[in-house]
């Protein structure tokens, strides 16, 4: 166990080194660059015995990772924003081929206008690609979740790709003390696992072949089922991680939700700020709570619905939009989950922080106040609103 000063990006690089990854393929894009830059240093100076493939695009980055994984290698790739959009079609292929690729995403806004700052537009556009999707809140969690991701992805019951989301700059470039796990503990916790169906010239087989209407549905259904059934493995990986590190994150972080009139639900780094404002407002007598969701896919609908059922109202903070829809992607998820489990709690959607627009204490306070108003009036005047945009 060491205590190191690391940014989110270099914390992930450090974990990748400890996980003894075989192939790393990536194309640099801000704010992901330093993540793979550091890994390339590890490879160049011999600290990590891996093949580093500097590809010509993100489409190729994921394709190289996918094919290397198909041959049994432990792989890592990472990207952001436009690069993630370019990976889109390969993401579907990775999950249906059931390949345990792990990808770090430095979440960033999507053009136009060109913007390198944080929001969740890039990952939300990948929602239906069949990957396990986890959001971190700190550099420490970025490091920890990277180690967990390999154990989850390579588990015999799962065999699915995992994407890990780190808010661009806010997490990727902010340095904080990170407590590491010893190399031996990492390899015991996430041991290299061999799969039976691998690309090998001695035993030829076909991957990614044609699935005509007689076969496609079943092949697709198989990967959908695998994602749905991965939930206990994800929970188990978190619990087992606590044994080697003393740290555990859960599928969400709930703070002061008991007896809360309103709960503000968010994903990613903003969770910490929301908890701080919740703490202050509780001190002032307002019954507010925070729910920071960590696991976006598979979506823990039952658990989220149960937790939200205690409140009088819910405000869902989206750092992305679904233009033309009644709310942002996270809001749509929460609304359908409340409705499906017959939880009669009114909910509204706040879109904030697009393109790196700062979400300050007063903004968060105003979101809580909107929620309190709904809790007291039992009425949602506006289903979706925007905080921080100059209208």
């Amino acid at each position: 166990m060491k205590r190191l000063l690391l940014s989110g990006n270099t914390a992930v690089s450090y974990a990748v080194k400890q996980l003894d990854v075989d192939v790393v393929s990536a194309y640099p894009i801000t704010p992901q660059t330093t993540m793979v830059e550091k890994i390339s240093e590890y490879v160049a100076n011999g600290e990590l015995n891996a093949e580093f493939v500097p590809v010509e695009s993100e489409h190729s980055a994921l394709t190289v990772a996918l094919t290397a994984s198909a041959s049994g290698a432990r792989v890592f790739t990472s990207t952001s924003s436009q690069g993630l959009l370019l990976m889109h079609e390969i993401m579907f292929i990775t999950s249906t081929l059931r390949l345990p690729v792990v990808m770090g995403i430095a979440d960033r806004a999507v053009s136009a206008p060109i913007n390198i700052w944080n929001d969740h537009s890039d990952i939300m556009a990948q929602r239906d690609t069949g990957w396990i999707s986890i959001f971190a809140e700190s550099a420490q969690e970025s490091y920890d979740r990277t180690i967990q991701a390999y154990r989850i992805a390579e588990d015999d019951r799962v065999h699915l790709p995992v994407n890990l989301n780190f808010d661009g700059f806010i997490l990727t470039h902010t340095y904080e003390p990170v407590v590491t796990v010893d190399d031996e503990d990492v390899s015991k916790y996430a041991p290299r696992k061999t799969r039976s169906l691998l690309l090998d010239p001695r035993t030829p087989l076909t991957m990614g072949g044609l699935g005509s209407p007689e076969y496609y549905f079943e092949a697709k259904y198989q990967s959908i089922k695998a994602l749905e059934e991965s939930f206990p493995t994800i929970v188990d990986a978190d619990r087992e991680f606590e044994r080697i590190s003393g740290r555990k994150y859960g599928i969400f972080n709930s703070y002061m939700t008991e007896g809360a009139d309103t709960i503000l639900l968010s994903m990613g780094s903003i969770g910490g700020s929301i908890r701080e404002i919740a703490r202050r407002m509780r001190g002032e007598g307002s019954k507010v709570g925070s729910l920071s969701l960590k696991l976006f896919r598979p979506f823990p609908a039952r658990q989220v619905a149960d937790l939200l059922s205690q409140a009088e109202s819910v405000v869902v903070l989206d750092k992305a939009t679904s233009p033309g829809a009644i709310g942002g992607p996270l809001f749509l998820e929460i609304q359908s989950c409340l409705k499906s489990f017959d939880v009669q709690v009114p909910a509204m959607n706040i879109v904030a922080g697009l393109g790196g627009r700062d979400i300050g204490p007063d903004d968060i306070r105003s979101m809580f106040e909107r929620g309190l108003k709904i809790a007291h009036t039992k009425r949602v005047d506006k289903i979706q609103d925007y905080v921080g945009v100059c209208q």
Partner: protein
Amino acid sequence: MPKKVSEIDEGFVMKAPKSSMATKTGTWRAFKAVIDYNKCISCGICWGYCPEPAIYVKDNKYIVDYDYCKGCGLCAQECPVKAITMARESD
């Protein structure tokens, strides 16, 4: 017949990949070419046009191989004596 989900190898890996010669492709069609031998003059134009090729010759007789005929209808279109009709597969 579709295979069950449990019968498909993980990730739709094909452990014994085969060419279309072995796997047959006739199930794709909605219509099949039917030759009326009372009209057929054995000119061989259908044989020449069939893109599959799913028409073969035996004893100067042109025969549709339904394991591979995908029902495109080119032969029926090109037959100079209108000896080929496209019949709906389920009929």
